[in-house]
């Protein structure tokens, strides 16, 4: 039932000569070994995997990201030594689980890695090959910050458009004031109180007085908070700006 990644690896090498696939052994008992693809030929490989007779992995079941800020951890979980160690700042990884509904096989685990976690966090999109990647790539972009080149509609999907960070990265720090409601024993509230103009955080009833201001001291934050309203207003104007037109895939 489970496909043999080592065999498929050879098939890929034969069919897509430019590809440099690498087999990753899964150290755990699950035994789901995976194929690591280089980004340049990834789309071709996926197209091959989807259509090649005998493979026909027609269902991209799952596409998700993983953040590896520490290459050492990554190595412990399954980077073989023959791969040159990635930059010290770590990398982001996209993992795909492919199934073949025709041959009832799967999952074939295929991964891609970015060069680093900052400017180099680019990967080719899979949406033209598998439509089901569309929303999942948007999610990975939203939560991990991987930019999928060629994606037809790469916008944030779960977080709001004005959000700036990537919350699923491991070094993400939740803002102190993401909730201004006190939860007893919650250190978050203690920290959050400093962001609000509330004298001691309590009123007579024990409930906090509502914050007088949003506590956004600096101009930039104010600007960020107001910009959606402004955009909404602009959109309402008789002649909508060109940016309003969403791209239809």
């Amino acid at each position, binding site marked *: 039932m489970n496909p043999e990644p080592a065999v498929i690896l050879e098939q890929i090498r034969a069919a897509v000569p430019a590809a440099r696939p690498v087999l990753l052994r899964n150290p755990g008992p699950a035994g789901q070994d995976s194929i690591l693809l280089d980004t340049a030929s990834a789309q071709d490989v996926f197209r091959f995997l989807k259509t090649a007779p005998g493979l026909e992995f027609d269902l991209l079941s799952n596409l998700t990201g993983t953040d590896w800020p520490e290459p050492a951890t990554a190595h412990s979980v399954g980077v073989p030594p023959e791969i040159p160690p990635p930059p010290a700042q770590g990398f982001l990884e996209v993992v795909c689980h492919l199934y073949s509904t025709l041959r009832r096989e799967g999952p074939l685990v295929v991964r891609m890695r970015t060069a680093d976690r900052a400017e180099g966090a680019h990967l080719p999109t899979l949406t033209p090959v598998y439509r089901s990647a569309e929303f999942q790539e948007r999610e990975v972009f939203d939560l991990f910050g991987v930019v999928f080149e060629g994606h037809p509609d790469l916008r944030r999907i779960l977080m709001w458009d004005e959000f700036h960070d990537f919350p699923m990265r491991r070094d993400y720090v939740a803002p102190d004031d993401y909730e201004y409601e*006190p*939860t007893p024993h919650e250190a978050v509230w203690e920290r959050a109180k400093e962001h609000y103009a509330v004298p001691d955080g309590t009123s007579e009833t024990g409930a906090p007085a509502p914050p007088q201001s949003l506590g956004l001291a600096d101009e930039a934050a104010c600007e960020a908070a107001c910009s959606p309203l402004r955009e909404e207003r602009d959109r309402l104007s008789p002649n909508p700006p060109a940016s309003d037109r969403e791209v239809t895939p």
Partner: protein
Amino acid sequence: MSAAPKWIPPGIGLLQGLAVTGKNFIGSFFRADRMTTVQYPEERVTLSPNSRNIPFLVFDGGDPDTGLRCVACGICEKECPPQCIYIVLDRDENGKSLKRPKVFDIDASVCMNCGICAEVCPFDSIFMDQEYELSSADRFKGLLFDKATLAKSATYHAKIRPLEAAAVAERKRAEEAKRAAAQAAKEAKAKADAAKKAEAPPTISNARPAGGSASPPDLSPTRSGQESDPPKSTQPTAPEEAP
């Protein structure tokens, strides 16, 4: 589904639907089992003995302060998925653990009644209650349950969950017996040793707490670890200071 009949006059499906609703309309006046709803404050459904809601702490005997089974080990605090439990270990003036909680709070507005605290507790001291009328006019303090609110007697536990309570009592009896046997053996051994060595005070008898808080043998590492590292006692927020 069998193949559709060859010739269907239109409107039959609509009439069938009307027949079903009509049957229910009339049936609702005559058959109680048709009714979907319960007229809540007057009628109440009997809860299943397994039904769980907010956790509570069990105490043995009549005094919730001294009889509390909880030894403030902090396992539930650690395992609680939404982190709604807050425990401060009680210590005497020398800083020695008294093996009971000074503060044991559960934030009912955060608690999701999953029952993991009861599941992981090695001392059979926290269980799931069946009280579901927890609404309070005070959004914050009213839903912060302290030790006094949470403490409920073992009889109460036996009332709401007879099977579970019986099993716990059985287990405790067995442990007690085992411990007594071990104690007796030790004492016998000590006596024998004493008889052998003439003057040697028994050192072990005080090491285990009195009462029912004996730990199962597989858990001693956790407990000893906890004793060396008191749970978050440096955290400033005691319930009375909490907003």
